[in-house]
């Protein structure tokens, strides 16, 4: 993976750029000492690192606008940053870029339970949005596994999902409005505490635009009343294929669980060691959660059980207490961390049609044998969003490259069976060069036109999402 060469004209003016930022903003808002900058050299795609030219951590929308105006006037690239947990290199800086982070914008501005909305500054973490409303019986639905750390700004940037999105949708389905600063410093309000867009539904393209259209400083989100109760059930199968077939059957039968999560043996063992959730030691595990009153839960689980029994499960076990349910989810949500304690891995994020699960799992197994690299599978099976973790040894020369090749093959497979390169983590730098597998030149050109409108100078996060060859001539 290649980053564009930093613009020497920007690097040369580094001192002047920093001086102008410091002049316009409170002193503690601008970081330019090398030690301070190292903290921003990467996101959660840690294989790639590059300290930025400077970092700005504004305390208001106005300060964001002031910083952007300066960068715009001086033609300085900008990388927006939330909490830096992107797995795709979305907030990876370039050496000539100013990182503008929203970490200090964490206020809740308004909650309204009658209208079921919350308005907040986007540096607030995902989990603390629910935290702000849960005592009153509400929650914010999208729940990425990284929810303790990741910020709403990054969720909007990536259109993030989570385990419970099968029922509640992803970020774009729960986002009602934003305050966003354009690259030239213009502040726009788009959407609000109501449902329809007036004219064009600009939120659609803003959500998931990976920091390339503007810096989002405030958001209005839909909050929902908490369900009466929820209960997960664990089902163990002796093959991934059978577990996959069971998932398709459940969906076709018209039962709609809130979550259907899948793990294979390597992942089950790692998570069990980490969270002691009582996962059975089987080839493939499904965690299926349903919601409602106790009677409703019993009824849905009965239907799900009936379907599962046809696939001869090795184990079916319902959670019997709130603690047990919490442990089951802790295990699942710690999957990446737990695997990381055992092995270096690369996490993929393709989506496939649910009906192709058995085939794709088999083909991944074949690729694993072919490349000689292990794979652990953990993913949102209900919506076909796969997270194969390819295991490799970072200290072994050539292993990372081999792993990347195998990852690319798996993502090509996802596209080939009718799916896509990324279901929730975003393209970033990681999948940038695979975009041509999924899109024609014309398809990509249409997307670039959107950026032309929002950011005519192509200064915002411009080295991401699209292959560099495709954006050549647009980027400064």
């Amino acid at each position, binding site marked *: 993976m290649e980053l564009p060469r930093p613009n020497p004209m920007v690097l040369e003016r580094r001192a002047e750029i920093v001086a102008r930022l410091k002049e316009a903003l409170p002193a503690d808002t601008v970081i330019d000492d090398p030690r301070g900058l190292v903290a921003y050299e990467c996101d959660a795609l840690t294989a790639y690192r590059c300290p930025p030219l400077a970092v700005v951590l504004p305390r208001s929308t106005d300060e964001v606008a002031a910083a952007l105006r300066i960068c715009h006037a001086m033609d300085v690239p900008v990388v927006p940053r939330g909490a830096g947990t992107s797995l795709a290199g979305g907030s990876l800086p370039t050496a000539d870029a100013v990182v503008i982070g929203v970490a200090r914008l964490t206020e809740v501005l308004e909650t309204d339970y009658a209208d079921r909305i919350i308005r907040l500054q986007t540096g607030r973490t995902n989990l603390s949005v629910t935290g702000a409303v849960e005592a009153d019986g509400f929650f914010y639905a999208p729940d990425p596994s990284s929810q303790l750390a990741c910020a709403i700004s990054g969720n909007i940037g990536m259109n993030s999902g989570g385990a419970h999105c099968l029922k509640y949708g992803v970020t774009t389905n729960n986002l009602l409005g934003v305050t966003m600063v354009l690259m030239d410093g213009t502040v726009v309000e788009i959407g609000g505490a109501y449902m329809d867009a007036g004219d064009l539904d600009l939120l659609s393209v803003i959500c998931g635009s990976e920091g390339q259209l503007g810096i989002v400083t405030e958001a209005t989100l839909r909050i929902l009343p908490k369900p009466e109760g929820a209960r997960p059930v664990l089902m163990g199968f002796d093959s991934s294929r059978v577990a996959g077939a069971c998932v398709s059957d459940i969906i076709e039968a018209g039962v709609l669980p809130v979550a259907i999560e899948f793990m294979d043996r390597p992942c089950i063992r790692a998570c069990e060691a980490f969270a002691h959730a009582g996962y059975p030691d089987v080839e493939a595990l499904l965690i299926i959660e349903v919601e409602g009153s106790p009677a409703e839960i019993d009824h849905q689980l009965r239907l799900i059980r009936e379907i599962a029994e046809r696939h001869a499960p090795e184990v079916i076990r319902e959670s019997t207490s709130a603690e047990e349910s919490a442990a089951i989810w802790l295990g699942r949500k710690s999957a990446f961390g737990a695997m990381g304690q055992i092995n270096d891995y690369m996490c993929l994020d393709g989506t496939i049609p649910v*009906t192709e699960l058995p085939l794709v799992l088999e083909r991944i197994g074949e690729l694993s044998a072919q490349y000689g690299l292990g794979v652990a599978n953990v993913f949102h099976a209900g919506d*076909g969003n796969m997270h194969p973790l390819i295991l490799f040894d970072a200290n072994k020369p050539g292993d990372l490259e081999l792993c990347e090749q195998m990852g690319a093959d798996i993502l090509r497979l996802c596209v080939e069976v009718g799916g896509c390169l990324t279901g929730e983590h975003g393209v970033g730098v990681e999948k940038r060069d695979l975009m041509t597998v999924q*899109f024609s030149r014309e398809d990509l050109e249409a997307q670039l036109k959107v950026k032309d409108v929002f950011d005519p100078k192509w200064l915002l996060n411009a080295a991401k999402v699209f292959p560099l060859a495709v954006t050549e001539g647009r980027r400064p």
Partner: protein
Amino acid sequence: MTVITPASEAELADAVRSANAPFAIRGGGTRSPAATRPVLSTAALSGVVLYEPGALTLVVKAGTPLAEVEAVLAEKSQRLAFEPMDHRPVLGTSGEPTIGGALAVNASGPRRVQAGAARDFLLGAVFVDGEGTRVRNGGRVMKNVTGYDLARLQAGARGTLGVLTELSFKVLPVPERVATLALACDDPSRAVAEMARALGSPYEVTGAAWDAARMLLRIEGFAESVSYRAGELARLIPGLVPVDEDPWPALRDGAALAETQRDIWRISLRASHGAILAERLCGAGAKVTLDWGGALLWAAVAPGTDLRAQMADLGGHATRLRGEGNIPALHPDPAPVAALAAGLRQKFDPRGLFAPEG
């Protein structure tokens, strides 16, 4: 007027490329008065491309009549959960609504309050832009963040960014049972407050409307579940009683207002502001109904009334669905936002072929 009915995407692209004056894009023509421009019809781009009930996905050509889509889904006990409205009662038009037309106006019925709008169920789109270029975006899977979401941007764009040719949707199972509960109530503020109570409960209300005489709630799901929830809601809101009729299609279509000779407006605003505006308008003699818990207000007002003047302090926006005059049908966006929208139209349709009629 000339009507061009391309038989394929390629023919459509040719027609756009060789055009030198604006078109009137037509699906079923149910939303539009007689065209004053050459018509570009999607009628021949029709049919189901792929339907996988087990993956809850449907891929369909844009000119397919909605009725046909619904029939295909019904065979497998599935449906379009966003309940697209039928514009014919209000507009007095004929023709068959198409799936492309529904998406182009983001037509979303009462279930929007719980399940979402047309845009929320859209998985992907193919369209031909103003230069005759075919663009594919999104796909047919449930989760997809690969590149910008240009497919969803088409929802509500009214064809101004391109002619839709193919769409994919997430579909949902038809519930085992549906129940409607009603509370006699002619006060919109009380209705909105009660709807907020219901929508803030865990009982998954999939419709919350006020028809000027009653507050109406809908619950859907497994039979046992529906009876349980109906009971709980009645406990929460004393006076709530089950009704046998199905009021939702009429509420969805604004049918109660259709009979009048007045202008018809559809206003999207904050639910609690729906109550405020309803009070104002009812006080001034308008006929009003509410949907989406108050967040959608339908109003029939004297011809030529500028409703926007009466909601300036409330936010949200008003679309005039029926009526004529100098007042723009769509709510003007603030200047910097309007500039972005205009910029996008300039990029996707530089020759203004798809510019709104009238």
